[in-house]
């Protein structure tokens, strides 16, 4: 099977998977009890009434209608696209900042083993701190920053939170990558009397690419999650996360509306991962593995 053929087949099969999922939704809705299924007092299958599980066509139909009744209100799908693009921009900044910080941390940890031992457990710990605890701090302290014409905007707080999530996979992946060169290559560099920096540039960084790329993609996904949560948390307006909460507020009386921004978030995640994958194309050369035979 040729490569292009494989790609389009994959898309086809993925589509079939999605269609089966959608069919399950409607199928369960048609057949399942309206009050859901409980086992040992715990609901294990959802309720099937129109408010809990709107019909798929109701969601699509709702997405085509305007957001609200005010004049000039755009259709939901258009608003969702706008919000998603907005979030994508913020997340991209967070991702870039987080990636740079992650890479620098990894280089530091690679350079100093003590730093690795001291810092790494705290990196894991840092990811267990709920964003709820950090968001107000970041917003409050960001608000104090004002240097010349530069002043802190709310979106920057969101980007910082996105970076806080994105840096972690990058730092860890990059560290693994930087440590990945074979002994033989390291000794070769030593025999050339190449110093730490030269070894970093010529050997460690290129060798880390196969680890770095998936880490960057993971970072992109984390940055999106961070952006979505931080938008809700900090009240940043215009993004998809904020839209999810806003639309969820009308979940009582307009349930189908809430699904549009969620679909938007799904697409957003895929787009972000895709963009990073594109980045990987330029670095393909470094993905070569030495075959030992």
């Amino acid at each position: 099977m040729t490569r292009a053929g494989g790609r389009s087949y994959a898309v086809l099969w993925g589509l079939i998977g999605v269609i089966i999922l959608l069919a399950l939704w409607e199928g369960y809705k048609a057949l399942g009890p309206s009050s859901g299924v409980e086992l040992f007092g715990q609901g294990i299958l959802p309720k099937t009434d129109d408010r809990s599980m709107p019909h798929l066509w109701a969601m699509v139909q709702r997405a085509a209608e305007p957001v609200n009744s005010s004049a000039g209100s755009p259709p939901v799908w258009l608003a969702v696209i706008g919000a998603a693009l907005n979030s994508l921009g913020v997340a991209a900044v967070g991702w870039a900042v987080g990636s740079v910080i992650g890479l620098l941390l990894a280089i530091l940890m690679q350079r100093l083993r003590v730093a690795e031992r001291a810092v790494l457990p705290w990196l894991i710990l840092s990811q267990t701190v709920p964003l709820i605890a950090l968001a107000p701090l970041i917003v409050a302290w960001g608000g104090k920053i004002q240097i010349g014409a530069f002043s802190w905007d709310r979106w920057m707080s969101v980007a910082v939170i996105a970076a806080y999530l994105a840096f972690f996979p990058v730092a860890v992946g990059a560290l693994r990558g930087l440590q990945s060169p074979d002994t033989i290559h390291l000794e070769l560099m030593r025999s050339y009397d190449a110093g730490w920096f030269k070894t970093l540039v010529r050997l460690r960084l290129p060798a880390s690419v196969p680890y770095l790329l998936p880490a960057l993609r993971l970072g992109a996904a984390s940055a999106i999650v961070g952006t979505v949560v931080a938008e809700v948390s900090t009240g940043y307006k215009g993004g998809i996360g904020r839209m999810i909460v806003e639309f969820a507020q009308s979940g009582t009386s307009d349930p189908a509306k809430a699904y549009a921004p969620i679909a938007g978030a799904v697409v957003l995640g895929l787009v972000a991962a895709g963009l990073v994958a594109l980045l990987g194309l330029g670095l393909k050369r470094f993905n070569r593995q030495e075959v030992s035979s």
Partner: protein
Amino acid sequence: MTETNVHPAAGGASAGGSALAPAAISITNAGKVFAVAKGAEVRALENIDLTVSPGEFVSLIGPSGCGKSTLLRLIADLDEASSGEVLVFGKSARQARIDQEYGIAFQSAGLLPWRSVQANIELPLELHGVGKAERTTRAEELIELVGLTDFRSRFPDQLSGGMQQRVAIARALAERPKLLLMDEPFGALDEMTRERMQQELVRICAETGAAVVFVTHSIPEAVFLSDRVVVMSPRPGRIVGIVDVPLGPGTSRTEALRENPGFFTAVTAVREALHGSPAVPAGADLR
């Protein structure tokens, strides 16, 4: 070929000119102890005395774990001797490494997978600030030398194992070192490729006039290539004998040498030194 000389223990100076220039390698009473878990130690090398003259080809042979690689690594300053002295061209091993006095090739080629054949060969030059134009010229020379002209811009994973080895050897030669250190460079090759590579190594050494320290498991290979074969024994690693392989006048290291009775005598001598057994009947000893 006239006679086969076996020095029972210590490695004396070779026939080469030791008065004119400093020896390529001069190791005096060197030892290496590795600390392992819980205070235990491994005595990898002990009482090593060895001198290698400029332009001389010396092989190290011995059973697995006898310290061949360790000895090579001491010379290359990839490990430090626990005792004794290791001089390379009259300087400390460390200084020699910093001055880039040697080129090294490992058992596996160790090419950087993301660099083309040419870029791999250029790597040491690039690291030492040689200009682009000069690098290219030198790399082309070397590529021709190892017979990979058509493969210049290929990547390592597109080469066969033997080709990769040749690139590694070219890389080791890039800076025209006066000393070449090779740790079982042909270990992974099949018999025929291996014999071809041996031929090429002989040719390259003749052309560049470099001294070589060559680690191998194969007796015929050691004898075929070397001026002297250093035989080692394990735990702790010591030199148990040095076999001279003097070429008679007019004899050169070609395929025909392998069928020369003198060659065969040297093989037997190495085999004996290695097995520590009394001599077996000459003329029937192989591998």
